[in-house]
């Protein structure tokens, strides 16, 4: 893990976000299927949880359906620290998906708000590109220079 972390800059994606609700609630929204199904996935998608077992070694199996297709997915929890951190492996819903990537989500308590930091580390640059492409396909968005400019201006 440490060898991976030492040279993972080109294989990781960092996303941060402030959510306007207290941390306990935001954390609950990640670990309770009745909540998670309500927000997971881009606009136009529905997420249906098939099973969720939030503890190290446990899995969240869900299917996302939308305009670009149906995506059976699997999250396998590695670490669960309520209500501040989730570490999990995210991939297709099959055993040993070679492109599965490791995600660390931290929830920082800001009173009425919560700061989410999400670090995704892919097993290789090729896997990163493949997964990013798949997510792009799911998202179905058409990329423009303006978007790129915003992204770069935002320090991405």
């Amino acid at each position, binding site marked *: 893990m440490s060898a991976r972390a030492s040279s993972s800059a080109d294989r990781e994606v960092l996303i941060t976000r402030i959510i*306007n609700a207290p941390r306990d*609630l935001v954390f609950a929204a990640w670990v309770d299927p009745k909540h998670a199904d309500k*927000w997971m*996935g*881009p606009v136009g998608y529905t997420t249906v949880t098939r099973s969720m077992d939030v503890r190290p070694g446990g899995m969240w199996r869900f299917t996302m359906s939308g305009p670009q297709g149906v995506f059976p997915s699997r999250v396998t929890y590695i670490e669960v620290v309520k209500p501040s951190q989730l570490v999990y492996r995210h991939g297709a819903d099959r055993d040993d998906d070679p492109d599965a990537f490791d995600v660390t989500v931290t929830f920082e308590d800001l009173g009425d708000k919560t700061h989410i930091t999400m670090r995704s580390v892919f097993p290789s640059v090729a896997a990163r590109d493949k997964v990013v492409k*798949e997510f*792009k396909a799911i998202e179905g*968005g058409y990329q423009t220079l303006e978007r790129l*400019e915003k992204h770069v201006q935002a320090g991405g």
Partner: protein
Amino acid sequence: MLATSLDATFAALADPTRRAILARLAEGDASVLELAEPFAMSQPAISKHLKVLERAGLIERGRDAQRRPCRLVAGPLKEVVEFAQGYRQFWDQSFDRLDDYVQKLHAKGRKNVRKSKQQR
């Protein structure tokens, strides 16, 4: 894509003038003179920016010796965009929905707390 070439692309994109030049070229090819026009900049200053963009592989210069029109090269830009944007957008949109959803939950929770306090 190698990290080093991604670095070169990001470095070239770090300057607002160069991004504006690329945005202009996205609409069609243009000469140095045409590119210099909207900016309060000399032609040599614009030429310097063009060299950086050319070295990063973001633009190509035409062979026409007089005009040497600049053309956008989509490849590296696409790589940068695809580097993370699909994934980012997936989560940006999910987080928008999460934000809406938990705010509603939070408001509902407060109402319920008030209700149960009144009942006591």
